[in-house]
């Protein structure tokens, strides 16, 4: 039991530090790679907690590797926009001057109802008021309305 408690404390501190190392990006909207890393870290951290046969270092190592890779790749994508596009995709315009781009919606597997729901969450109740709506790489929808 004391071993489990100590391991829990160590892993908790490690995961907190890992999230700090990844920076504020993790606490905002997540890009696909960031979402993957977050899910992986949470799953990996439970393994040495559940199974005390696993050496703590063996549990810590994958967390450190993933976090460091994420930080390094996000830095590299700053310098190589093409790589960023490959990893995160690019924003897609779905509404222009009140008109839905149905082809873009099909590509994104979004329904009209999804778009209207997202617009309503941004206090837009008529699509004709929308000058431009963009689906960002993190899945959120940004809206510019007619002035």
């Amino acid at each position: 039991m004391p071993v489990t408690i100590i391991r829990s404390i160590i892993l908790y501190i490690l995961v907190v530090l890992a999230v700090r190392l990844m920076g504020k990006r993790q606490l905002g909207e997540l890009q696909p790679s960031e979402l993957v890393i977050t899910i992986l870290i949470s799953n990996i951290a439970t393994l040495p907690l559940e199974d005390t046969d696993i050496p703590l270092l063996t549990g810590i190592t994958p967390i450190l590797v993933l976090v460091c890779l994420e930080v390094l790749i996000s830095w590299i994508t700053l310098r190589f926009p093409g790589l960023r596009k490959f990893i995160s995709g690019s924003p897609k315009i779905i509404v222009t001057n009140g008109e839905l781009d149905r082809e873009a919606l099909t590509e994104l597997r979004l329904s009209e109802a999804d778009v209207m729901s997202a617009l309503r969450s941004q206090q837009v109740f008529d699509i004709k008021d929308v000058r431009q709506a963009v689906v960002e790489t993190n899945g959120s929808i940004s809206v510019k309305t007619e002035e």
Partner: protein
Amino acid sequence: MTRVKISAGILILVVVTGVISHFWIRHQCGELTRQAQTALEYLDEDNFPAARQLMAEMAEDWSSLRKKAGIFVRENKLLEADRVCVRMIKLKDDDSGEAEAELSELTKLLANIY
């Protein structure tokens, strides 16, 4: 930029530690395996005193390795090897041939320990 440097440093440290630990454990297990094979040869030649002495040395070497290997290797694998070593020590003064089985078992365990 500080985060990037820290991340690069940690990654390098992890990779280096992983590589060094891998080769170190393989080397140590290789040494024990060679000793086990030498002990088996002694037993084949009925050179029991030499075999007993070698098995006693092996047990000490394993005991030393086990403490450090615990940082990198799963505990259940180390416990299995511990059990075999204990049986080997008990059987080293018994010339019935059971020590050979334990030595062979230990060799197999060491091959898959890491």
